C-alpha cells in the first residue's frame, strides 16, 4: 500500500486514515531497531575506554535508556509533540502526560500508524541522544549524578529541541519554530540528535574537566572487537532511525535506507584514507569511527540527497571528522570518546552540507546550492544548526553545573585511578584467567557496606 502520509507529521488536511499494517509493521521494527542502538552504543563506547571503566561506560547508556523512557512517558513526549504553548518553543507538557491518552485511540485519523508507537519511536531518539553525551565524560562521572542529569536534560534540552525540529504543524496542531517557521530540513535528527548531543557533551566535558592523566597517560581502547560489534549494531539500528523517520513503508523510506547505507560506506573509506595517508595505517577504530561519522552526517540529509550526493556526504564527513578528533588535544578539553569530533562536527557537516547537496528529486524536495537552489536552504540550515548548538551547549552546561554543585558530578581522583567500575559499581568487567575465581573468597549475603558512588 503506497504511503498515504507526508513526512514527518500527520497531514491534518488529509482524509481520515485507517492504520496501515505495512507502515505499522515497519514502525514497530524501526522502533526496535532504535532500541538496539542503545546496546550498540554501549559496546561502541565501552570498547573504547580502558578495561577498568567499561562497565560504567555501558551503564551510562543503560541508565540513560531507563531514565529517559520514564521521563519521556511522563512529560517529555508532551513537551515535544504537544500543541505549542507559544512561539514554537515548547509543547503543552500536560497534553499527553503519562501517555494514557494514546492507549485507546489508534490513529487520530491523520496518521497511518498508531500514535503510541510514534511516541515510543521518538522517545528512543531521546535515549540515543542522551547516551551519546556520556562519551564525553568517560571514567569519571558519579552514576547517580549522571542519572539526575539525564532526567533534567530530557525535559530541558532534548524535548524542547525535538519540538522545534520534529513537530510539524498540521490541521489545528501547531508545532515548533525550526520545522515550521524557519523551514529547517532535518530528516532524522542532525540537529536534534547529533548537534544536540555533541554540544551537550562539550558542555559536560568542560564542567567535569579532564581525566587524570589526560593527554599524558595512554588511554587506549581496551577491546576493539566490542567497538566493531557496536559499530555494526549501530549501522543496523540506524536504518530504523533514518528510514523509520519516513513514518511509512514506501519509496521514500527506501531512498532513505539507500543514502544511509551509502554514506556509512564512504564515511568509512574517507576516514581510512586520511589515516592511511597521514599515519600510514588504516585502523579498525578508524573504520568504525568513519562509519559513524558518515551515518551522523547523513542523518539530517538522508531524505534530501541522491545516491551520488550520499556518497559525497559520507566521504566528506569521514575526512572532516578524522581531523576533528585531534582538536581536543590542541584545545585541552577532554571529550573522552570524541562526541564533539564525531557527532557535533559530523552533525554540522550533514546539516549544513544539505544546504549544498540537496536535490529536489529526493524525498524532501529541496534543492541545495549545487543543485540550483541558491543559498536559501543553506541559510535555514545555518539558523537551525546554530540555534540548537547554542541552546544545547548553554542549557546542558547549566544543568551540569547545578548537578555538580548539588551532589558532585565527579568521583575522587583516587577512585578514578583505581578504576570507576570497582569503586562506583563494585564490579570488574572481566575475569578470564584459567584460575578464575581462585583468588577471592566466596559470596556473602549480609550487612552491606556503603561506599562512595
Amino acid at each position, binding site marked *: 500500500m503506497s504511503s498515504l502520509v507526508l513526512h514527518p507529521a500527520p497531514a491534518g488536511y488529509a482524509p481520515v486514515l485507517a492504520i496501515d499494517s505495512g507502515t505499522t509493521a515497519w514502525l514497530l521494527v524501526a522502533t526496535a531497531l532504535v532500541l538496539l542502538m542503545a546496546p550498540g552504543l554501549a559496546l561502541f563506547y565501552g570498547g573504547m575506554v580502558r578495561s577498568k571503566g567499561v562497565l560504567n561506560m555501558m551503564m551510562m547508556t543503560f541508565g540513560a535508556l531507563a531514565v529517559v523512557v520514564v521521563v519521556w512517558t511522563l512529560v517529555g513526549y508532551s513537551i515535544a509533540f504537544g500543541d505549542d504553548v507559544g512561539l514554537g518553543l515548547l509543547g503543552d507538557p500536560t497534553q499527553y502526560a503519562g501517555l494514557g491518552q494514546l492507549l485507546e485511540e489508534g490513529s487520530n485519523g491523520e496518521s497511518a500508524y498508531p500514535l503510541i508507537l510514534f511516541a515510543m519511536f521518538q522517545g528512543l531518539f531521546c535515549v540515543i541522544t542522551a547516551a551519546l553525551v556520556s562519551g564525553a565524560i568517560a571514567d569519571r562521572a558519579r552514576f547517580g549524578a549522571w542519572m539526575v542529569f539525564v532526567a533534567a536534560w530530557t525535559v530541558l534540552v532534548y524535548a524542547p529541541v525535538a519540538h522545534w525540529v520534529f513537530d510539524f504543524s498540521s490541521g489545528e496542531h501547531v508545532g515548533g519554530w525550526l520545522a515550521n517557521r524557519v523551514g529547517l530540513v532535518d530528516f532524522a535528527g542532525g540537529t536534534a540528535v547529533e548537534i544536540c548531543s555533541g554540544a551537550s557533551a562539550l558542555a559536560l566535558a568542560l564542567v567535569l574537566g579532564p581525566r587524570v592523566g589526560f593527554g599524558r*597517560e595512554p588511554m587506549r581502547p581496551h577491546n576493539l572487537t566490542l567497538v566493531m560489534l557496536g559499530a555494526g549494531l549501530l549501522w543496523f539500528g540506524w536504518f530504523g532511525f533514518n528510514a523509520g523517520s519516513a513514518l511509512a513503508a514506501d519509496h521514500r523510506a527506501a531512498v532513505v535506507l539507500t543514502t544511509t547505507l551509502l554514506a556509512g560506506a564512504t564515511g568509512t573509506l574517507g576516514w581510512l584514507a586520511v589515516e592511511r595517508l597521514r599515519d600510514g595505517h588504516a585502523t579498525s577504530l578508524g573504520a568504525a569511527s568513519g562509519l559513524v561519522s558518515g551515518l551522523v552526517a547523513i542523518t539530517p540529509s538522508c531524505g534530501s540527497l541522491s545516491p551520488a550526493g550520499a556518497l559525497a556526504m559520507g566521504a566528506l564527513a569521514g575526512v572532516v571528522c578524522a581531523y576533528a578528533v585531534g582538536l581536543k588535544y590542541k584545545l585541552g578539553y577532554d571529550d573522552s570518546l570524541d562526541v564533539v569530533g564525531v557527532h557535533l562536527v559530523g552533525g554540522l557537516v550533514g546539516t549544513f552540507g544539505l544546504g549544498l547537496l540537496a536535490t529536489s528529486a529526493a524525498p524532501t524536495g529541496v534543492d541545495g546550492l549545487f543543485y540550483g537552489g541558491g543559498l536559501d536552504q543553506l541559510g535555514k540550515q545555518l539558523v537551525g544548526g546554530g540555534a540548537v548548538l547554542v541552546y544545547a551547549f548553554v542549557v546542558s552546561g547549566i544543568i551540569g553545573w547545578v548537578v555538580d554543585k548539588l551532589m558532585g558530578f565527579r568521583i575522587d581522583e583516587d577512585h578514578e*585511578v583505581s578504576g570507576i567500575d*570497582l569503586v562506583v559499581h*563494585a*564490579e*570488574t568487567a572481566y575475569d578470564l584467567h584459567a584460575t578464575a575465581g581462585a*583468588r*577471592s*573468597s*566466596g*559470596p*556473602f*549475603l*549480609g550487612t*552491606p*557496606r556503603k561506599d562512595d558512588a
Partner: protein
Amino acid sequence: MKLVTAVIKPHKWEDVRQALEAAGVTGMTVSEVSGYGRQKGHTEVYRGAEYDISLVPKIRVEIAVDDADVAEVVDAIERGARTGRIGDGKVWVTPLESVVRVRTGDRDADAV
C-alpha cells in the same frame, strides 16, 4: 651479578622505568602479578552476593645488574615507586651465579 626484583603499583611503572633509565638500566623483564599484604583488596557485589577480592594488581620488575650497581638500582626503584601510601611494594635482591645473552652467548656483565 645480582637479580633485583621489585613489586610495585601499576600506575608507578612509568616513573620507575624513567628512574631506572636515568640510573643506566637498559634492560628488564616485567610481569603482571597480584599482591597480598597490608593493602587490602576490595569487595565486589554480584546480584547481592559479596565477594572479597583479597589480591591487588601489582607489577613485578626483574633486573639483572652488576654487583656495583645494586644500590643505585634499588634506590632508583624506591624513588620511582614511592607514594608513601600502603601498598607501595617491595624490592628484594638475590645472588646470581651467571647471566647469558642468548643472541650472542655473552656471559655475565657482558650479557645485561
